[in-house]
């Protein structure tokens, strides 16, 4: 006897997902089904039930629309997203993330007048009612620490750049420098989440996931969104970076960033074990997929779709990743440009080179993390090391993209999660000083497709403490990046928890026209 399809006690015949009913109903059905299975698995514990009803529905309902699209996948035209909203200037982006908070005053925000104020107290009026971090809130004095390094003007634009960045200085005329980036958070975790996901609390999708979700893949054999971590330098003050930063949040886990490891095999267990050839692997995956499809039909959980897609991607990556990381065919000019570090896997230089190779191979979004910028003390000891590790590779990447004709449609972004204070944390001497976290202004740069080269945007006050002109909040920064990729940040949305969620969050954000080409 065939039961009513919406009966909660239905047997296998009830193929709700195949009925000609609205998508929304199917989605709800999937949610109910999934939750019941979730409860069944967890032994019907009351606590679980409460949890499930708290965030079960929307969390587990997942991305039916995308699942739908994925089911139709293979056909690029099959996507039902209307993105990009307009013809984009950049097809892909490379985000060089300087985790820890690079000190803008020592790198790109030139403040010549500070030299005369050495060891003077930062006026209270500048700091205002700001709540400082626990690390310096107790300090009796806030002695001004001018930069230890001289600045010089570079390029036709006469941009002031610290002597710490001789390579970055060479591309001064290509950069769009933003001096007034500012954030709401003063500590690493919330600030780095805000920068990446538009929200200080974990659980929202990061920029790369939004881009994968919105724009889709350009390459079936590599992930759309790849994360490269730079090997930790023990001498530096490293803040943790982990997969929460490239999580897809409430979007389907297909859109999460795929992290390549910084040492050894870039992807674990990617090579087939001895005795398993590619044919055998294929058969195994086909069988797994058949089982997964069965589960999908049974339960309609879109995450099953993601799982199928992930198996397939892993299979294809078995062939594509070895080619991606095989640098043996790189011409000598590459090594001359990136420097000797680039030959050692896991260095920032190596990752920049990989990022260029990914851009060539159609990876939509590559994020390279470099930790260690958290210079609370010993700035004069640490900064030269950090700059030596990053300055040349940044220049090499931009130059390499440019000479290969890739910079026209690739956006390169260099940013940390916040800046650092003008006043010294701990003791200030002529030789050394420390700098605490500073959210009110920090310097970032972009270059490539969509942004105006040779531009310095915004002005900070004479202490590089507050924004004097043209602030760029993180959400404006992100809206501008999306714009370069052809996306109206207000239109890339996903319904979750009753809101049209978006990368820039509910507070109005605007594209910074002054940065655009």
């Amino acid at each position, binding site marked *: 006897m065939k039961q009513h399809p919406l009966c909660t006690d239905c047997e296998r015949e009830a193929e709700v997902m195949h009925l000609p009913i609205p998508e929304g109903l199917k989605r709800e059905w999937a949610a109910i089904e999934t939750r019941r299975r979730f409860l069944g698995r967890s032994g019907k514990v009351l606590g679980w039930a409460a949890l499930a009803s708290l965030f079960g529905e929307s969390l587990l309902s997942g991305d039916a629309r995308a699942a739908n699209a994925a089911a139709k996948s293979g*056909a690029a035209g099959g996507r039902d997203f209307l993105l990009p909203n307009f013809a984009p200037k950049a097809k892909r982006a490379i985000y060089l993330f300087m985790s820890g908070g690079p000190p803008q005053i020592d790198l790109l925000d*030139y*403040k010549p*007048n500070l030299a005369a104020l050495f060891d003077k107290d930062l006026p209270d009026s500048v700091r205002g009612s700001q709540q400082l971090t626990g690390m310096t809130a107790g300090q009796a004095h806030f002695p001004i620490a001018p930069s230890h390094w001289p600045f010089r003007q570079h390029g036709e634009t006469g941009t002031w750049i610290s002597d710490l960045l001789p390579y970055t200085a060479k591309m001064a005329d290509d950069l769009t420098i933003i001096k007034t980036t500012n954030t709401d958070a003063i500590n690493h975790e919330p600030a780095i989440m805000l920068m990446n996901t538009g929200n200080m609390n974990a659980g929202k999708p990061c920029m790369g996931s939004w881009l994968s979700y919105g724009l889709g893949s350009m390459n079936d*054999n590599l992930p759309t969104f790849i994360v490269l971590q730079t090997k930790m330098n023990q001498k530096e003050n490293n803040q943790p970076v982990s997969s929460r930063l490239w999580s897809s949040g409430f979007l389907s886990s297909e859109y999460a960033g795929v992290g390549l490891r910084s040492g050894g095999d870039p992807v674990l267990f990617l090579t087939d074990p001895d005795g398993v050839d590619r044919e055998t692997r294929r058969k195994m995956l086909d069988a797994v997929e058949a089982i997964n499809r069965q589960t999908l039909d049974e339960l309609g959980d879109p995450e099953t779709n993601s799982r199928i897609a992930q198996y397939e991607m892993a299979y294809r990556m078995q062939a594509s990743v070895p080619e991606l990381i095989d640098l043996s065919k790189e011409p000598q*000019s590459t090594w*001359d440009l990136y420097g000797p570090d680039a030959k050692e896997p896991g260095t920032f230089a190596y990752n920049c080179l990989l990022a260029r190779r990914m851009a060539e191979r159609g990876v939509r979004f590559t994020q390279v993390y470099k930790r260690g910028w958290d210079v609370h003390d010993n700035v004069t000891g640490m900064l030269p090391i950090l700059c030596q590790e990053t300055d040349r590779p940044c220049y090499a990447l931009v130059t390499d993209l440019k000479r*290969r*004709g890739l*910079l026209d449609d690739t956006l390169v972004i260099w940013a940390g999660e916040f800046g650092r204070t003008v006043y010294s944390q701990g003791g200030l001497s002529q030789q050394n000083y420390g700098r605490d976290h500073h959210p009110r202004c920090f310097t970032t740069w972009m270059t490539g497709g969509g942004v105006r080269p040779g531009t310095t945007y915004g002005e900070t006050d004479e202490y590089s403490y507050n924004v004097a002109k043209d602030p760029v909040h993180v959400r404006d920064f992100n809206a501008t990046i999306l714009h370069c990729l052809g996306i109206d940040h207000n239109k890339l949305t996903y319904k979750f928890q009753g809101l049209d969620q978006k990368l820039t969050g509910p507070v109005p954000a605007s594209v910074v026209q002054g940065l655009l080409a």
Partner: protein
Amino acid sequence: MNLAKWLGATAGRCIPKHPKTRAKWLAALAISLVLLSLPYLVRLDGKPHADWEQFLGRFHVLAVHLPIALVLLVPVLEIAGMFRAALREAAGFVLALALVACLGSVALGFLLAYGSGEAGATVTRHLWGGVVLTIGTLLCVILRPAWSSEAAHRGYPAMLGFVLLALVWTAHQGGTLTHGNNYLTEYMPAPMRNALAFGVVNAAPGSDSFYTRHIDPIFDAKCVSCHGASKVEGGLRLDSYEHLMRGGKDGRVIAEGEPERSLLLQRVTLPTSDKHFMPAEGKPPLTPTQIAWIRAWVQQGASPAATTLAGISIAEPVKEVPLQPVGDYSGLMPEIRAMDQGQGAKLVPVSSKLSDGLILNTVDAAASFGDTQLAQFDKFAPYVVEAELGRTAVTDASFDTLAKFTHLRALHLEGTAVNGAGLAKLAPLTQLTYLNLSGTKVTDATLAPLKSMKNLQRVYLFNTPAQPAPGADSAQNSQGAHDDKSSESK
């Protein structure tokens, strides 16, 4: 001749032999000479001087209205005197008073210009206007007694008429100095402006003028953050032509035709360590090119309307070739999908707008995508705006197919076996702006046909025989792309 005779006759009649009258003339001559030589003795050098000079000088703007009113009153009294004789008697007194007021105003005005370092064509005109006006008034004073005793003496009315004209002209110059160039005509009704024609010349700078295209953007980028509507450092605004020409609290900053005397150019060319150097506070200075443009523009009259300058040729920024919308390919959707499945090469829409066209993406099928595969995309040729054929197996034979991609804007052939022999076939692709031949075997010779493609802006030749061996010097490589633009697209 007639004029000389008339002057001689007038002089004969007006200069009586009476020694007292002669003394009067000599005094007038002396005063005139002093007035005329003053601007030569104390040159307006465009540099500010003592503060007290400026302090007193600023009363010029107030005091100057006194002689204006008095001079205007004289003809009124003379005419009214025809009916009431007492008024005509007053005219003589008012005229004398006007002379005194004129002398005072000229002195104050000169203090103002000299003290605040004003210079430039309008100031000069205004100064000479004031001098001529004062001398004219002086002559009126001397000529009047002869006229009042004997109406046949026409010298006085003629001179008075001249003085009135000089007054109007000088006052207009003064108004221009304080209020800016088109203050009077700014709100003139359009028909009247057109009828008078002159409003057109003085109107806001045209959109294609050298000022609008090249000078204003410099100020906008480098100066307006401190010298603009929101922040008016030193009373100077550089956000419009009127403001620029009006100058700031140190006087005018542009002396038309005299770059050396233009305060603005002096300030931006000081040594960077000088405390008067602009832009201040370590902001990016003007580039040598920008300074050269401003200098040339000032040298040639600082005109708001001139569209070109002698000796300055600026390569126009590469114009975006207007995108030609492609036709409607929605009817081909099923076939496009079928191609995706079969080839592994995809046709991806550029954006949600159909008319933005399609991108041919071959990255998934690179190794097996050759000339035959490309030929199968013939049917979609007019809708493809970008062909990503990098690292595929296509050869020069494909240029025959590519020639049919009439809307092609970007062509990627990097890392292919192409040697450039077929590049000439791209000639009909007028929309093509980007061509990537990096890592191919193209040579200078095979690239030659590209020179005729006017819209082709970016040609990338990294790692090809057409470009010097890569590697040795990374700086040289870095400019590859831009060199290509200039050498290949011309």
